[in-house]
């Protein structure tokens, strides 16, 4: 017993170092696995609050571009309404049962990172607004990512610029599916892998979200094909896609609350049992 105490006293500095290093390494390893620890994320009270403050200042600097984006989106939506055949018979919003299959929560990006290989955004709405893990996040131009961790008033989002993210997507013209991943190189481009060789792909074709995902509704814009490669190992196409979104400057975003996702997940769970 005495010797154990002696050992601890003699090596206390080294032991403290190893203890702290072990803690931080465990946190690091957890952060690289898909199910990350909840404690060390910017969706907590302290960090979320600080980012919100910073953002409220920096917001003023790009109000103009934000306004332009909103005006553009308004114009687009208006044109859809005006071009519909009968403007009087627009679907009425049913206030009891919601708008449609997907509900939308408006939120704002208060912190954006794009310089690392695993990028996360922080947004300023959380559980209190109904945000839960695994909801899709988009903006007027296209998809942004998937909600990761939530707290009461904040949530973190796995950006599509994250080497861990993998989203089902398809070529709009031919409905061929593939997986959307990021190779960590450029913030303007992502890759669509595992596209079958049968698919006819051409530079400039539009890529949209596929119907296999329960997170995103079908046909949300992602980008256009910029380059076409053939993977030597698997003989599938790998497409380099230029994003519609500028991921380095994001403002207001929409969180998609899919009503069917619970049901589909439950069904799939039952199927597996």
């Amino acid at each position, binding site marked *: 017993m005495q010797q154990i105490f002696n050992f601890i006293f003699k090596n206390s500095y080294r032991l403290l170092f190893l203890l702290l290093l072990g*803690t931080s390494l465990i946190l690091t390893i957890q952060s690289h696995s898909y199910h990350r620890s909840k404690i060390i994320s*910017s969706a907590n009270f302290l960090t979320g609050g600080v980012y919100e403050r910073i953002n409220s200042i920096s917001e003023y600097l790009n109000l103009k571009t934000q306004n332009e984006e909103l005006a553009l989106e308004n114009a687009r939506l208006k044109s859809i309404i005006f071009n519909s055949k009968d403007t009087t018979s627009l679907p009425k919003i049913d206030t009891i049962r919601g708008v449609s299959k997907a509900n939308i929560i408006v939120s704002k990006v208060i912190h954006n990172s794009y310089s690392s290989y695993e990028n996360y955004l922080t947004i300023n709405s959380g559980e209190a607004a109904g945000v839960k893990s695994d909801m899709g996040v988009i903006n007027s131009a296209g998809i942004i990512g998937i909600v990761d961790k939530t707290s009461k008033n904040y949530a973190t989002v796995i950006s599509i610029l994250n080497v861990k993210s993998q989203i089902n997507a398809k070529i709009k013209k031919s409905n061929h599916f593939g997986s959307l991943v990021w190779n960590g190189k450029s913030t303007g481009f992502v890759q669509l892998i595992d596209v079958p060789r049968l698919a006819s792909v051409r530079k400039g074709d539009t890529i949209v979200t596929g119907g296999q995902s329960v997170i995103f509704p079908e046909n949300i814009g992602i980008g256009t094909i910029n380059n076409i490669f053939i993977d030597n190992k698997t003989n599938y196409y790998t497409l380099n896609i230029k994003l519609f979104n500028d991921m*380095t400057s994001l403002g207001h975003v929409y969180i998609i609350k899919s009503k069917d996702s619970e049901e589909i997940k439950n069904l799939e769970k039952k199927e597996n049992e």
Partner: protein
Amino acid sequence: MNSAILVNLARFILLLAAQVLIFNNMNFLGYINPYPYLLFIILYPVNGNKYGLLLSSFLLGIILDMFCNSGGVHAASCLALAYYRPYIFKFSFGLSYEYQTVRLNDILTPERFSFILFSVVLHHFSLFLLEVFRLNFLWEIILKTILSTVFTIIICIIIIYIIKPSKR
């Protein structure tokens, strides 16, 4: 003694705030960020409490990790730097560094520069290695380490010159 604690506490908060508010948003060339917050560990008194250094650098790293959503990478690399700091001192200033009063925030001599250089390289390499965590990106890690090191050292030296005590 009390003033030393206060100075370190102020440094801790100011460097952390500067890192989160300014330096994390630089994104020079798209992905290069300087990390001058490690000045806290570099400038910690040579004869100060080593347990205090270890604990405070862990705290510094873990708070920054919360802001960066990066798990424990900053904490781990800060700890590595804090633990190996005496060895780097010994390497840069010679064996008897503890008996001389080493003052880092002063005119830049080759010894001081080599100390800052080795500290920053150690910290950045472990940081990017843990942050990327994939060995097939090794060249990117090394490139990122070199570029960020240059950037960090420039900013560290500027900060040291700015906060240098005027009367000496």
